[in-house]
């Protein structure tokens, strides 16, 4: 039996039908027929089995795209719905928005391939001047999103992307090119429930002295995976990738990052913190690769997680691969429970146990948000975290 005759699962068969008749759609169909959906036999997906999550087909989309918080009322909002792409709000000078029906996809992994295949077209954003107005990208329930973002040298943009479906399969593919000395600041929020599958993929390339800064908050879903590949291609390029996650019930959230240093004097800062309870599962896979040419690289990666119940699961795979000899690289990974002594101390002061736990978890996780420069967004993320804690501790 050849690969072409692979037996397809109901989810795989359903996907074949939803890919539109585009070049990317055709490519995704060919890939899917040959290799199937990524599953636990594939190393990069050993803890996040997409084939199993889609075993019963694609869940019916449900929920809303979510409201735009007050702090982002001046933002330009790009909506990605199953019916198509929409735009709302004022546009600053120096921002060009186009759509492209066929855009080549280079060297991407299976998630990017699926997302590209799913999206009927790509929205291309070109930033030619510094943008003071943030851009919000909303992935509606069941919708595909494909964005190509080019920041010309010296420009700056703040991007907020959200995926808040309660059910359905939504995908997001972002291909990002950050020019010399340019900076992209990205804040991501994902929230789903036990019927939502969200696959987000960012392929980022950063030129010399450019910067990619991404801070995320994930609550997981039936399966939520945020995959980020960053290539620090130019000298002195840098990235900061931080994420917080709070998972309960049977939700699953996967944060997979790969940062490649290919030029000298690059800097990477990664910090992921989360708490997992009930039967939820978090996956952190973080790889930093330093090529021989990338001397004087300064890279640090940290992942720290709290296990709040016995049945919860946290899988972590931190990896450093270094071929240059003059670098500073470090990583740290801890998984533990809440500090009993601190809990007793707080209760002795009169704080009930559930509230004491909430305060400790909040303090632990929200460290990730300290790097958010927009105060409104920082408060938004913190209040989302607090709301989760109030529900989960009651």
């Amino acid at each position: 039996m050849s690969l072409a005759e692979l037996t397809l699962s109901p989810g795989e068969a359903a996907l074949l039908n939803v890919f539109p008749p585009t070049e990317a759609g055709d490519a995704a169909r060919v890939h899917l027929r040959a290799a199937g959906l990524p599953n636990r036999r594939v190393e990069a997906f050993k803890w996040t089995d997409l084939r199993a999550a889609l075993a019963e087909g694609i869940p019916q989309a449900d929920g809303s795209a979510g409201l735009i918080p007050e702090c982002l009322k001046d933002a330009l909002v790009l909506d990605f719905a199953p019916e198509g792409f929409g735009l709302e709000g004022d546009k600053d000078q120096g921002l060009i928005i186009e759509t492209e029906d066929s855009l080549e996809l280079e060297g991407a992994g299976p998630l990017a391939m699926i997302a590209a295949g799913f999206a009927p077209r790509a929205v291309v954003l070109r930033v030619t001047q510094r943008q003071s107005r943030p851009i919000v990208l909303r992935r509606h329930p069941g919708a595909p999103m494909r964005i190509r973002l080019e920041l010309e040298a010296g420009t700056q943009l703040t991007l907020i992307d959200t995926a808040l479906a309660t059910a359905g399969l939504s995908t997001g593919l972002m291909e990002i090119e950050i020019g010399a000395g340019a900076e992209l600041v990205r804040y991501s929020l994902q929230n789903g429930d036990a019927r939502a599958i969200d696959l987000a993929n960012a392929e980022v390339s950063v030129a010399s002295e450019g910067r990619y800064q991404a801070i995320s908050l994930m609550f997981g879903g039936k399966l939520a995976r945020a995959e980020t590949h960053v290539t620090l291609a130019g000298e002195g390029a840098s990235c900061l990738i931080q994420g917080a996650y709070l998972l309960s019930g049977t939700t699953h959230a996967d944060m997979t990052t790969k940062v490649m240093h290919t030029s000298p004097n690059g800097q990477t800062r990664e910090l992921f913190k989360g708490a997992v309870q009930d039967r939820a599962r978090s996956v952190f896979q973080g790889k930093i690769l330093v090529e021989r040419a990338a001397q004087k690289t300064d890279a640090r990666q940290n992942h720290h997680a709290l296990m709040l119940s016995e049945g919860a699961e946290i899988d972590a795979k931190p990896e450093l691969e270094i071929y240059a000899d003059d670098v500073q690289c470090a990583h740290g990974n801890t998984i533990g429970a809440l500090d009993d002594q601190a809990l007793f101390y707080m209760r002795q002061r009169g704080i009930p146990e559930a509230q004491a736990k909430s305060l400790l978890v909040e303090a632990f996780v929200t460290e990730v948000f300290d790097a958010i420069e927009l105060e409104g967004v920082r408060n938004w993320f913190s209040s989302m975290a607090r709301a989760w804690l109030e529900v989960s501790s009651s």
Partner: protein
Amino acid sequence: MLNINNLHVEVGGTSIIKGLTLCVPAGEVHAIMGPNGAGKSTLSYALTGREGYEVVGGTATLNGDDLLELAPEERAAKGLFLSFQYPLEIPGVPTLTFLRTALNAQRKARGEGEISVPDFMKLSRDVAKKLGVTPDMMKRPLNVGFSGGEKKRMEIYQMALLDPRFMILDETDSGLDIDALKVVSEGVNALRGPDKGMLVITHYQRLLDHIKPDRVHVLAGGRIVDSGGPELALALEADGYDRYKEAA
């Protein structure tokens, strides 16, 4: 006020407190002295309800309320406060947030309304001034990066803010230099009152020069083996605990 009768406490299956009886009436300050390992800290943890300190016999009541039936936070709401020998650091929780949460939780448990933010700010500033607690200390996460002395001052600051009815001070003098000891002692003395009680646990007489006890008890081998007036502390300072070894 505080009545402990024939209390037995085990830690990890080992008997530590073995039939302790003690009564501290309202308005009095009692000191408990004793050698290392006598069970002083075990007593303070058993009274405040720390997990792992299992009361296997006897009773302990505060103003008639059975303490042993209550969760630690419920005991706190009844007015029981422990100044820890080793105060914990709580990273990420600003001191003032922590204290306002604690104060409001206690008020709620007692059926009182929440204190308003302006009232709380005023209260916290007034108390801080008296105890030499700086605005910087109040803004930082609780006890994080504090010296031993600062932590002890912060304990007394919390005590003054929460205004408990019965206070247990566990080795409050350790880690304090003479000047800090004076500030802390003045703070403690200001909290004495006709309807309040205090148990001062200490290894050394030094603290009792500043916080004058009404009664001094010697704890050895898990029991009170001697009681007397303040002069007993001076005798212990001179002679040590050797003569209680047999009693233990």
